[in-house]
């Protein structure tokens, strides 16, 4: 599964790079020099990476030792040693969060951004903090303290640091 995701991710990057190189081709020499000087090796490397993924799949099927190309690509590094807890690093983070948890927090982040856009940074930001902490069932003193700190931060940012936040969309 992870290998397929790697392949897809590399393909998306390659596609973006291809479009960038294609667009750069029409520019004057000075403007296209760096995009092409880096873009073409970039595309070559993406192709090499895809080939190494393919080699890795083959060698995995044979149960052989890691191929040099796969090690260089990092797709199969050193027999999994990089992901093994080494001495003094015996913390293995296993991603056990549910997709629902990701979706909920993604929605919260979108809500933060929209609230800030609609109500402005000081009000939208402060309300976002309070609303999320209530949702996360934090104790009331923590909710109050962090909400007040956020409000104070915005006050300081406006009064002292003279950050000119944009007007809220709603008024």
């Amino acid at each position: 599964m992870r290998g397929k995701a790697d392949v897809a991710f590399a393909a998306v990057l390659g596609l973006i790079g291809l479009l960038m190189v294609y667009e750069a081709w029409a520019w004057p020499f000075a403007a296209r020099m760096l995009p092409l000087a880096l873009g073409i090796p970039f595309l070559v490397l993406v192709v090499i990476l895809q080939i190494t993924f393919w080699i890795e799949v083959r060698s995995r099927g044979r149960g052989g030792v890691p191929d040099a190309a796969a090690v260089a690509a990092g797709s199969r590094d050193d027999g999994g040693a990089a992901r093994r807890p080494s001495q003094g690093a015996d913390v293995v983070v296993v991603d056990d969060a549910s997709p629902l948890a990701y979706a909920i927090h993604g929605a919260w982040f979108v809500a933060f951004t929209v609230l800030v856009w609609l109500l402005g940074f000081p009000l939208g930001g402060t309300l976002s903090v309070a609303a999320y902490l209530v949702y996360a069932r934090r104790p009331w003193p923590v909710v109050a303290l962090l909400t007040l700190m956020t409000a104070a931060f915005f006050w300081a940012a406006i009064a002292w640091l003279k950050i000119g936040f944009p007007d809220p969309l709603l008024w």
Partner: protein
Amino acid sequence: MDGATFQALIEGLLSTLNVTTLLLMSAGIVAGFVIGILPGLGGTAALALMLPFTFAMDPVSAFALLLGMLASSTTASDLTSVVLGVPGDAVSTALVLDGYGMSKRGQGGRAIGAVLTSSMLGALAGAFVLAIAVPVVRPIVLAMGSPELFAVTLLGITTVGAVVSGAPIKGLILAAFGVMLSTVGQDPQTGVMRYTFGEPELWGGLGLVPVTIGMFALPEIFDMAVRNTSVAGTAADRIDSVMAGVRDTFRHWWLVLRSAVIAIFIGLLPGLGGSVAQWVSYGHAVQGAKDKDLVGKGAIEGVIGPGTASNAKDGASLIPTVAFGVPGSVSMAILLGAFLIQGLVPGPSMLTTQLPLTFSFVWVLIFSNIVTVVLCLLVARRLRALTTVSGRVLFAPVMVLLLVASFAEKRSFLDVLIMVGFGVLGWFMMKLDWPRAPFVLGFVLGGLAERYLFISVDRYGMGWVTRPGVILLGGLTVLGLVVPITLRIRAARVRGAAEHQQPPEGERADATDAGGPPASGAGSSREPRGST
């Protein structure tokens, strides 16, 4: 040191020890710390904000305020990178990798101790070099033309791309991708709009702060909240002491020295800036890391190297600013503005008639860095405690900080959306184990690389590649690419062959249960223990 120079050194010290100067320096330190700890508002923003207040001051007081602020904001930025994984300034992004990695492994105290001590030692080294180096380094700096500077940027990009990630091809792909994205905006040479999609707010290019915090901070805090864990995660119950990091730094004195030399050299070169110094020092430091598996995840060398560089470069970048009127970084360009406000002319006069003032800069850098580090060590216990706070408590306030930080650089809401976009990209990269550091380094250095490449080609044609400096740096770049890849392939073959010779799975079960490492990759940690 002749008698006149020594006298100027003492005069500089006495003018710094003036009560007004010390008070202003302290005010600068406090203000710099507060501003530096806010993500996105680093030393540059702090200097720009305080510049107008220096109109009515004498030169020594004005520079005490500004340099004190610069020193403490740099250190504060480093701390947020380590504790929260949110760089206070784009300059401190290199520290996120291993500094924050250490915090996640419950070694936040050690990382704080290491970064504070190394930054103080780096600052002292930078100040020392500032005091003695002007006559020595002048010919070297002047000998570095655009071709050599391009070669230096290429060296930095490839070294980090190939070494840091542990996945050289992925690292190089992402470094090149970062460079390509740095070309978004109006081309300074031809005026052509590149990849702007007709959006005027993209004419100035993608902002460094939204890209950096989107790439590093957003995925981390998001993941922490989703998994309802703290920065230190399951390692929170064995958080270590700050003094361990202090001891680590002194134990790695040779690395501190080398990182300081690298940062000082880069600081001397006009235009390369602090983030380059940190990244190149990082790349050098992790090359020599004892435990390569920890690189990017919490290697102490990856904290000490960039920690030293962050403040060492300040003293060094003052040299071209003071001696030649050529600012070495954006911060130094703002300081150059302070020179003009004070009626000072950078150049030979700063090394003759104004030498005591120049030496007062040295003393201010020394004092302010020592004071900052002592203050930070006093509050380090509280900072360390932040790494144990639940992600669901930190999520909302940090998210608001990220929104403000991404907006503040250019006052553009589009930057907030850019931060979100790069956050999504960074999250995928984090989940798929694609290294994020090479991308950001490529993005940081892309603009410089393009400028130097253009000048080189424009001035020398293709002859620039035959310059001795370029050949030397090019050779180092090739070595930096080939050596780590070869070493990794060799190590993997040896390990793979050894695993091949081990007995079948069933016979190995006891060893694995007894604490031995699993035989294959990440999947092994999820296997039900009952099956053995």
